């Protein structure tokens, strides 16, 4: 079985290997360039002092320069987002669909090996290959993206950055492969299986990222006065889900805004801070957030969900395979 | 060694065709006692017919005492059909030629002669072998 799996999929494996090699080279080259520029512009210092008001305009200019220079490179990041999907489309979907489409399932399933064993070995080997590849590019992208992450003062929780680094890509890749295999058992033709994989993958990813991920753990609330201290630390990497200014009765008066005046300051016409916005006494800033310290916990939860989905789909696929004739 | 041929349009059973071909070969002296008949596998493969059919034909020949199977070796001819009749055939043939000339002189066409021979044979000679002839007779 192992020989057969290798013989059948060696071409896909070599293509994938070549593709990963190209991407890897691209990553190393641009990654090193970014790091050099990051250091040359003095950004490490700016990042370290991000909380200080004194960091000033030099840092802002450096950040902008870095942003302009590498905004094109960041498009490559989109490629890393779709890599798991490509693996699902080209490794997962054809696994069963092509056999049935070409009728070869009647050939291979009537040799002396049970269908269950055929499925376990094939899914196992293709899954293992997907795992190795995804761990590889997950780690690679984590390394590659970190200057962009810091240089663009982006939060690691942001949709784009959360999804393409750490362990999440491993979960996505395994899920995509399992989805492809399962789709192939339901629509045993190549194109429908691939289309179903595409739609299913994008649908589940978007649904989980927008609806479920903010609720993996109960979000925390933070309130701090309009005037005075207690504002959150921007370098903490918190994921702010929602924020605004509430009045004394707790009613939201200015959604998606925050008002911060230095202690003892007043408006230009002598009125109290924020009065021009209609803020009365007792108004305060409010935000709902996931603390930055939960980043790895969230990565683990997200990966766990997708791995669990993958396992479920594979079990269903094996059950369905019993019934294909 | 003889080679079998099959007449696909013949109404005669495949196995009967094989039996008849062996008998024909025995009559004309192509096969003699001690000769080996083609192996079952070879006949089945060459003619693309069921090996059981060949076996059945050989069994029929054994029942008629014309051949015997030697396990693991093959089937061999044990008796000939030519024996007694072969020397007589020339004389009989001369008689037949003379008779044919008389029939022609009497105004019979070749079709008439064939019909006369067949009906006379059917009337005066017993039907030979187990082959069913009712299809053509009925």
């Amino acid at each position, binding site marked *: 079985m192992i*020989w*057969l799996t290798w013989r059948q999929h060696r071409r896909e494996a070599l293509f994938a290997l070549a593709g990963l090699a190209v991407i890897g080279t691209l990553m190393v080259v641009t990654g090193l360039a970014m790091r050099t520029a990051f250091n040359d512009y003095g950004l490490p210092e700016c990042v370290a002092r991000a909380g200080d008001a004194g960091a000033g305009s030099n840092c802002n200019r450096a950040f902008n320069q870095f942003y302009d220079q590498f905004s094109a490179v960041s498009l490559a990041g989109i490629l890393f987002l779709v890599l798991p999907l490509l693996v699902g489309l080209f490794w997962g979907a054809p696994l069963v669909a092509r056999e049935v489409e070409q009728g070869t399932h*009647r050939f291979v399933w009537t040799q*002396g090996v049970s269908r269950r064993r055929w499925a376990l070995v094939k899914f196992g080997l293709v899954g293992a290959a997907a795992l190795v590849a995804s761990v590889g590019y997950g780690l690679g992208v984590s390394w590659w993206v970190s200057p962009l992450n810091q240089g663009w003062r982006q939060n690691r929780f942001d949709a784009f950055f959360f999804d393409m680094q750490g362990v999440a890509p491993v979960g996505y890749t395994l899920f995509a492969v399992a989805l492809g295999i399962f789709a192939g058992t339901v629509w045993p033709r190549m194109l429908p299986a691939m289309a179903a994989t595409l739609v299913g993958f994008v649908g589940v990813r978007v649904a989980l990222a927008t609806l479920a991920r903010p609720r993996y753990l109960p979000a925390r609330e933070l309130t701090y006065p309009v005037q005075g201290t207690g504002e959150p630390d921007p370098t903490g990497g918190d994921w702010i889900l929602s924020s605004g200014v509430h009045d004394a009765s707790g009613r939201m008066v200015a959604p998606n805004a925050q008002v911060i005046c230095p202690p003892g300051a007043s408006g230009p016409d002598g009125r109290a801070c924020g009065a021009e916005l209609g803020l009365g006494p007792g108004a305060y800033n409010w935000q709902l957030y996931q603390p930055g310290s939960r980043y790895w916990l969230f990565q683990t939860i997200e990966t766990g969900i997708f791995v669990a989905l993958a396992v479920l789909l594979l079990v269903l696929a094996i059950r369905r395979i019993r019934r294909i*004739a | 060694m003889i080679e079998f041929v099959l007449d696909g349009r013949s*109404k005669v059973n495949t196995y009967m065709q094989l039996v008849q071909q062996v008998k024909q070969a025995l009559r004309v002296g192509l096969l003699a006692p001690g000769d080996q008949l083609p192996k079952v596998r070879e006949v089945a493969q060459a003619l693309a017919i069921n090996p059981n059919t060949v076996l059945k034909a050989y069994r029929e020949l054994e029942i008629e005492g014309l051949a015997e199977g030697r396990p693991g070796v093959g089937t061999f001819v044990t008796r000939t059909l030519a024996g007694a009749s072969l020397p007589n055939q020339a004389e009989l043939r001369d008689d037949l030629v003379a008779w044919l000339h008389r029939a022609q002189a009497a105004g019979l066409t070749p079709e008439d002669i064939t019909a006369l021979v067949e009906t006379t044979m059917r009337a005066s000679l017993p039907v030979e072998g187990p082959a069913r002839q009712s299809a053509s007779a009925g």
Partner: protein
Amino acid sequence: MEAVLETDQLGKRYGRQWALRDCTLRLPAGRIAALVGPNGAGKSTLLHLAVGLSRPDAGVVRVLGEPPHHNPAVLAQVGFVAQDTPLYRDFTATELITMGGRLNRRWDATLARTRLADLGIPPGKPVGKLSGGQRAQVALALALAKRPRLLLLDEPVASLDPLARREFLQTLMGSVADTGTSVLLSSHLLADVERVCDHLIVLHAAQVRLGGAVDDLVTAHRRLVGPRHDGAPIPGVAEIVRGSHTDRQSTLLVRTDGPVTDPLWTEHDVALEDVILAYLVDGETQTNHAAWGVPA
């Protein structure tokens, strides 16, 4: 005698449509059996049930005494060539033989190689680039390399040209003579069936219409010609399979259970092909002149 294939009330359904129904038959060992019927009669369904590719929805199927579905022990003793001889087209014949060796406990690679060498099939060419006849030969060699006790072939020669068809049947008959394997092959080429098979199963509209040894079937059936038949029983006739009538005369294809002695009826032998066709025709053909807009 031992049965290599036995079914009892076997049924298989796709959705609400029965592809095979109430199928009860018994195939003794050592036979070469033909499965005959029009397209969609359930031939492939029966073969897929026999090779364990699908599971019965009703009744039982036993191959070499055991139910074949999800039963690698049975699978090891059954050779199967599916319709259109599907093979991995980018594999060479050599690679397919290697593959068979890895997937089967009992595997005679030498037999397969010898067979393909005898036929002059190139070992290193992807089988997708071979001719249809050569590909069918490769598929047959792979099925035979299992040294099966039962060989199931689904329309093995349907897509081959006459020469390739003859060569395929020659190889098949040679192997059967060598090994004594039982064979069940589906076909709609009645001439081939008549030449090769000694057992017959006729399927029509998902049901078994006729089954048994060819010799018995041919002997049991007769064509009777006589005066117009009014439906009265004829002594010696078990069943009138098919009849056609003019205003004075009836021609009946009948299954007999004894000699037909009634002098009104003239008896004729029938060929196997006539018997098969009689069972495949559904009674009287329904005319539909109105639908075609032509006078009857």
